[in-house]
């Protein structure tokens, strides 16, 4: 078996250790004998249906996000949406999450159009929401995501609000989450998750990393997949320590 991670704008959107997420996916696949490669998909690159088995989309600097937003409007956004519809898993964080919503409204200047994958919108604020974050993910049985605690580090001033039809990824136990107001964090749509959790997220939350791998294999090979269990002692120790310290 083999998988391809599509690292969306990996050369531009990779702030706050987001690359750790692709490292986690890569290693956890390799440890199970699954071949995996990471493909950077940047400005001007072509993307075609079935070319990617998991999407990852990190955060970036303000200027970069404008360039990326523009590029996504040129067909790439449409294709990503179609791929998510057929079950391709996606993880997006911070800036990447914002650009997959309806729009981002800065303090001044025009709105930055998103691709409307997640039914959310983001507004710039003067508040820096920064610190360790612990959330409780309620079960999403429709996609096989069990109840769990997830820990990370957030650092954003954009406030993201969910539209009525949006399903939050989790409920904030400690931290700010989407907007620091309604205790929601992130958004989940099909097998796509958007959130504000750096940290890096996946190394310390291995159960979530494996969920992405499992979804990717199921979509690609069309069968139910059981991943071989790994010895996750250091992963779970880091997770538990962080949750106890900050939760």
């Amino acid at each position: 078996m083999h998988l391809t991670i599509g690292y969306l704008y990996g050369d531009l959107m990779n702030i706050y250790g987001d690359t750790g997420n692709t490292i986690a996916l890569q290693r956890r696949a390799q440890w199970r004998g699954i071949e995996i490669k990471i493909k950077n998909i940047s400005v001007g690159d072509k993307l075609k249906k079935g070319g990617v088995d998991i999407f990852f989309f990190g955060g970036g600097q303000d200027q970069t996000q404008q360039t990326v937003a523009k590029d996504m409007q040129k067909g790439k956004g449409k294709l990503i949406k179609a791929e998510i519809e057929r079950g391709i898993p996606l993880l997006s964080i911070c800036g990447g999450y914002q650009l997959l919503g309806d729009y981002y409204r800065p303090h001044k200047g025009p709105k930055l159009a998103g691709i409307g994958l997640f039914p959310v919108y983001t507004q710039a604020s003067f508040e820096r929401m920064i610190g360790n974050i612990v959330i409780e993910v309620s079960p999403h049985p429709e996609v096989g995501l069990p109840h769990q605690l997830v820990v990370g580090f957030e650092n954003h001033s954009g406030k993201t609000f969910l539209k009525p039809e949006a399903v939050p990824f989790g409920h904030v136990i400690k931290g700010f989450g989407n907007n620091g107001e309604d205790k929601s964090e992130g958004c989940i749509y099909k097998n796509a998750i958007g959130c504000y959790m750096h940290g890096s997220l996946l190394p310390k939350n291995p159960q979530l990393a494996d969920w992405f791998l499992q979804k990717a294999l199921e979509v690609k090979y069309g069968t139910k997949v059981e991943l071989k269990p790994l010895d996750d002692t250091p992963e779970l120790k880091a997770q538990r320590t962080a949750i106890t310290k900050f939760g």
Partner: protein
Amino acid sequence: MNLKEFTAIAAGKTVLGLTRTLKVGGGSAAPGLYALKIYPDLISKLSRQIPQTVVITGTNGKTTTARMLAYFATQQGLRVLRNTTGSNLERGIASALINSYQADELLRVGRSGPATYDLAVWEVDEAAFNLVLPQIKPDLIIFLNVFRDQLDRYGEVDSVVKKWAQTLKHIDPQTTILINGDDANLLELRSSFRGRIRTFGVKNYKISGEKTFADKQKTRLDFEAVGVKTIGLQKTSFSITWDKFSTPATLPLPGVYHVYNFLAAFAAAHIMDLPLKPILKNLPRFSPAFGRVEKLTFKYAGDRTREGYIFLIKNPAGATQVFQTIAPELKKDDRLFLALNDKLADGTDVSWIWDTEFEKLKRKVQELKIFVSGSRAEDLALRLKYAGFDPADITVNRNLVKSLSSAKRKLSGRLFILPTYTALLELQKILAKSGVKQHYWKES
């Protein structure tokens, strides 16, 4: 000296005496903090009395560059004042200015204090730069580099550079600025400054900077290192070219990043008209700042000794450069001791370890024993697992004292100690207590 100024300095001196007597610190920040509350103009008032001032900023290398420039100038007989202990915020500079007064001479104006110095060399934090600069009015500003570092505090690289550019617009064009010409982000500063600009860099070397769009356009470098060769952990050799001159140099430090620090200090000395010959002659005897390639000797029973090296790690670019430098030197029986803290001065966000190439440490030596400590030891251990190290070779203990002592136990090779900033400060104390080295504020 007006009354307010006198009170501020006297109060600073009192705080300095107290912190040292009570052993609560080296007195490199608190005196300035209190004195500035009493007299906010203290820095501009006092620093004006020093004939020449150099300011050094950038993400990595400030302390080493400042120390090197001070070393060069001192050899020429100049009296140099600097903020010695890496205390590089406004309060650290105020503290250094206050400390320049002899306590018993405070009442005899002119006999001590800043006026008795020829040169001030200030290392200034990237964010504090914009606040401190207008108060200091330097003759020379050195921009070393700009990398992602503690984004929870400084913000993104773009915004750091933008703020520097804003500050430069209001700087006296009599000032000279010296820029690392290999860092494309810094080259953008040129359009914001009207005065003289000089550049330094390493020939055919590309620093893995943060510039992602246009590749660095080749800039003419005013001071350039050519043919850089690292010789173990002891030294680096190369030639320096400037104007129509070229001369060989040997730096008693490993790593290309130190060549950049040297070039900055050398160029600064040239701009200040210091004679260059003695600089190059005395260069091999330069000793680095605390925690930067610092060599230690551990004593064991029966007169046995073991070597230790301390390398500060604090951000992805700096830590990766350290790994690249030591990896080829790691031998069988050597051990690594890594400490990751998440206090304010380290950055509360430990995500940066995932941008740091720990994979670079994984060379040659297969069964390297690694000891991992600090308040986020578990995160660091996890990063090492994902960099390809076997968890069975990694010993995790958050307690620095205990972890260091097990790393030293039955050590038959060398111990490489790689701490983040506050872990380094704690280690200084632990090592001082066990007699391995002096307390840090006694060093200069």
